[in-house]
């Protein structure tokens, strides 16, 4: 019973969505858009579980004084403060709100918090990628064997060919770089994509027909 109903729902929903793909009629489109709405509603409910999980996880770390528990305290305080400001303080200074979100000329409504904390923090993490790319490239481009040497040469041609100095060195370099991207690279990419497409269909069939049941909690 615990697994029977979800499996039946999965079977029906899976078959309906497959059939829907082949029917362009407005009724079919309505079913599709309605199902997307349901997914959004379910996601909103799941967010409550997510907030509970954050609270329990970080709360436990603080109580147990686990290593780096101070970060957990910052995370919990930030979550509560942001939620309170968002719910009662308003999104921007023009919105009417229960709580004041400015002291003199200093404003701390939700939009300010997002633009001045989340955006730069996200940008910082993204910027780190440049350094990681350099270190990863150093490791993979060391010409230790034939394959690594081919990779190094191909990468060098593509990088040089993509910048203006490439055509200045040799006018045919950009064409060679483009050929490397369009032919060998694309061929490998398409081979992988065929495998992915078939794997996706096979996994979907296994789930719809109840052969693969891991998503139900792992039981047989």
């Amino acid at each position: 019973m615990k697994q029977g109903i979800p499996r039946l729902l999965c079977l029906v929903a899976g078959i309906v969505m497959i059939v829907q793909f082949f029917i362009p009629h407005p009724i079919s489109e309505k079913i599709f858009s309605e199902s997307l709405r349901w997914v959004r509603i379910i996601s909103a409910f799941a967010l409550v579980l997510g907030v509970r999980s954050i609270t329990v996880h970080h709360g436990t770390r603080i109580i147990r004084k686990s290593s780096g528990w101070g970060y957990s305290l910052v995370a919990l305080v930030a979550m509560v403060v942001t939620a309170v400001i968002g719910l009662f303080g308003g999104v921007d200074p023009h919105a009417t709100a229960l709580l004041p979100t400015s002291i003199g000329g200093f404003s701390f409504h939700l939009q300010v918090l997002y633009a001045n904390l989340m955006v730069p923090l996200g940008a910082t993490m993204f910027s780190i990628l440049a350094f990681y790319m350099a270190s990863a490239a150093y490791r993979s481009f060391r010409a230790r064997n034939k394959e690594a040497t081919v990779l190094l040469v191909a990468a060098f041609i593509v990088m040089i060919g993509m910048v203006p100095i490439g055509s200045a060195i040799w006018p045919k370099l950009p064409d060679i770089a483009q050929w490397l991207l369009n032919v060998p690279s694309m061929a490998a990419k398409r081979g992988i994509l065929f495998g992915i497409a078939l794997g996706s269909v096979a996994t979907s069939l296994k789930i719809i027909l109840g052969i693969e049941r891991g998503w139900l909690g792992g039981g047989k």
Partner: protein
Amino acid sequence: MSFLLAVCFIFGIGPPEAVKACDRPNDAGKCILLSWKLSPDDAGLKSYDIVRTDAFGKDTVVGSVPSGIGSFTDESVRDNVRYTYRVVARQDSLRAESVASGIAVSRAQWFNKARVNVLVALVIFSFLVFYFIRHARAGRKLFIRRIAGLDAVEEAVGRATEMGRPILYVPGLAGISQISTIAALNILSEVAKKTAKYGTDLLVPNRDPIVYTVALEMVKEAYTEVGRPDMFKKENVFFVSDNQFAYAAAVDGMMVREKPATNFFMGMFWAESLILAETGAATGAVQIAGTDSVHQLPFFITACDHTLIGEELYAASAYLSRDPLLLGSLKGQDWGKVVILAVLVAGSILLVLSGIKGLSFLHVIYSFFNIS
């Protein structure tokens, strides 16, 4: 140009001809396609106005296209209403009207004929999968090639146990609707069984709240299945943040502080893939990654010890569990690839042959394989 304008002014302009109107095929209705032969004086024209006449004889100008264009899509029609169309060539005050088209009626279709090829492919592939599942169910042995990344899972869990350090499992950053996330969760179940058996801590940070709830249930069930429900720690499977880089920062912090002996990165990843994998490599962890995102594969191949490429991610749960039913479907996938290969070769030959005079009919067969 001025000469043409002068000719038009003196002799008038020729109207567009052969106006054809038809329902757009394979759609949800409310659309009629129009085409016409351009006016002989097209070069000197300003535009073509499209005039629609409904069943009551009421004329409406539904649109206008510049000269040189001989088609129009009318998306302002109602279904099951009879319409005729005229196309009016215009050059300032000069006008030349075509003969009315035949009657066109827009209707919503119940089957998209352009997707017949997809349906055929789906039926063939499903047949192959079911055939090999039946084959496996009958107890016949199936050969499955070795996947080094999956063979290393046992060793990686053992290493973490010996070192007394936890295992970190990242089930991708996509939602539950992504097949790769489901594949990642299936692998999580197998990994959790091994960690439960060895008594090793398993940390599962999640980006999506729904994935978190499913992951929690799967890990719990895996521990119960191997008879170690007491070892399951609920707080080790948790939701972090739905913000991409906040999640990456949190997982990086976890790697640096907790120093997991093994990191698994399975599922869908975006720009954070290298941030996670390089941090893991810096901590000295054994890293096994698997993704179907072709853009992130090079990063994982560079920074991880083993990488499951594309379909290997989907094959992992079958490979690890050795369940004959799941292995049967893997065999079906392999034969599906053989079919695709045959279609590619046949399509290439047909395309080349269709260029030969007298064999152009082969192009029709080739076109069947084009996906709309």
